């Protein structure tokens, strides 16, 4: 299929992209605008279930944006549902893009717009490394957080592209068809142009939303405000759905307006096993299991996902498994206490943050 746009030939060659049309949709401003014009603009009740949302809005081949920050306000239960519904050929993009690793292993995602995969000091993602090496994940573009963030921002601001001073001198320039070395027309200084980016679908977890889609994000928004405006299909998942009147009488943290939102999913605990600011801490034990055992081999990640994803049906059945061996409801309650204490929403003196690994060090 001929591609609609002109890409840097060197990047296409380095990335071994033969059919460049696979790149088009991410930067197609025109079809993005057309899609937006077709969105329902009225105040309608947009609530559906997570199962319905994933089924209806995630199509095979879609470019899916990772949101939050690795495991901070990231709707991990959405990714689990994508796995359960066995979506195919998804492209993943995000800064960070941490959750693509297990989604890719499951066979749902094959392409990566890569900025950062990993869980900070929790070590390299051996699963992702294996999958890229085996060709099970194909990298379509290499990014820095800031340049990708500007691509989303350009989209939010209706700007076809934006100039920046990052990526200069980096080899990523040769591995990214969406950026281009250029010069500022006034200063003649080198700049890198970044195209506006339009992922197909994004799930953004918010603490509160109303049934029309007006939504509040507390804590760092990271790229999520930009993504809400940049993406073609926007689904808000939220801890709670509040009355529209609340949104009108308490405007704190409201940053997403209803007209850009396609669906609202009430999804309490939707970020577990990650954390949700104001609500609950991450499950450190789960991440330890993932990084130390799960990612080790193809077999271990399979077992891990079977246990935690394919043999659960929703966030509640996941939580029941999680707390069974970790202390029951008190564990769940403690997640709330830890998060609130660290944010200083509750008294933190006397709250114990210590954590002991549950898996003995054997390596």
């Amino acid at each position, binding site marked *: 299929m001929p591609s609609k746009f002109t890409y840097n030939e060197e990047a296409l060659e380095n990335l071994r992209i033969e059919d460049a049309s696979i790149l088009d949709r991410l930067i197609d401003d025109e079809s993005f605008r057309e899609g937006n014009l077709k969105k329902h603009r009225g105040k309608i009740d947009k609530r559906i279930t997570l199962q319905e949302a994933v089924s209806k809005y995630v199509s095979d081949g879609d470019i899916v944006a990772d949101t939050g920050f690795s495991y901070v306000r990231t709707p991990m239960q959405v990714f689990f549902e994508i796995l359960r519904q066995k979506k195919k050929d998804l492209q993943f993009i995000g800064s960070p893009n941490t959750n693509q690793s297990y989604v890719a292993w499951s066979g749902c995602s094959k392409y990566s717009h890569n*900025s950062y995969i990993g869980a*900070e000091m929790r070590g390299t993602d051996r699963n992702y490394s294996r999958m890229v*090496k085996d060709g099970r994940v194909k990298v379509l573009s290499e990014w820095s957080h800031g340049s990708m963030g500007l691509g989303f921002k350009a989209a939010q601001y209706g700007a076809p592209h934006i100039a*920046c001073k990052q990526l200069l001198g980096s080899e990523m320039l040769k591995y990214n068809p969406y950026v281009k070395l250029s010069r500022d027309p006034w200063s003649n200084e080198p700049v890198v142009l970044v195209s506006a980016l339009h992922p197909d679908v994004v799930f953004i977890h918010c603490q509160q939303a109303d049934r029309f889609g007006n939504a509040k994000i507390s804590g760092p928004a990271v790229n999520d405000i930009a993504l809400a405006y940049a993406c073609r299909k926007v689904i808000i998942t939220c801890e709670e759905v509040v009355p529209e009147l609340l949104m009108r009488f308490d405007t704190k943290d409201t940053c997403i307006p209803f007209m850009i939102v396609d669906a609202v999913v009430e999804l309490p605990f939707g970020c577990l096993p990650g954390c949700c600011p104001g609500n609950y801490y991450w499950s450190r034990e789960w991440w330890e299991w993932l990084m130390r055992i799960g990612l080790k081999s193809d077999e271990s990640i399979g077992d891990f996902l079977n246990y935690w994803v394919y043999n659960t049906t929703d966030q509640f059945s996941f939580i029941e498994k999680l707390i069974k061996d970790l202390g029951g409801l008190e564990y769940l309650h403690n997640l709330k206490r830890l998060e609130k204490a660290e*944010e200083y929403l509750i008294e933190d003196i006397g709250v114990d943050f210590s954590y002991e690994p549950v898996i003995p060090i054997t390596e």
Partner: protein
Amino acid sequence: MSTPANPFEQLAYNISLQIMDGQIVYVGTGLPMVGAMLAKKTHAPNITLVYESGGQDPWEGPMPWSVGGAATFRRAPMTMEMAHSFAMAANGFVDIAFQGAAQIDMYGNLNTHFIGGGFWDFRSRLTGSGGGNDLSSLSENVILVGLQDPSKFPAKLEFLTSPGHLTGGNSRREAGLLGNGPVACVTQIGVMDFEPETKWMRIKGLNPGMTPEIAQACTGFELKVSEQIEHIPAPSDDILQVLREVVDPHGIFITFPPRVR
């Protein structure tokens, strides 16, 4: 008297010494966080900490375990979106940023993409740039941090993720990059800086017990040597106490050998 500093503690201490009071400090995960917190608790109480996820100027509390975690935005007056947070570096509001990497070359260029081969055939794919390239490209001063050994300090990077002084001399400026680039490299051996003209890495100061020969043996390229090598002291008991009891009381980052986190 306290137990002497382990290598991580010495590193955290050396990092802290890079920070001057009143600066805006961009912190990533791990030891730079520890060093910055130590600086704040000792000689640099008026620094402002900023994080890539957008947290900034948090109220004092537990040490951040993640650059997105609650301690980075705990009772902060405001947070920033990610694109905006890096823009603050571009606009001159990040005085000092810390960076680690899988590979660091003599010009302070960094690789965080892969090791052991090429783009298609490697031993290990790493995280990618994350905010690393942004900080390297935009901050006023960059401090490199790492455990020095010849494979991590090679003569040639397998991939140039984040620019240091590129090919040395004036090449960074000519490429259009902002700021001074890397000004120091802090390791378990000591502190290196970059020759003013060539921008080649050189030994500036050595930790207790270290020699230029050890430094060179831990490096995959020839290290230049300053005319006057400083002898970096071990952290005092007072500082070790702050480090161990206040900054990282659970030893999340300063336990040696490292514990699982």
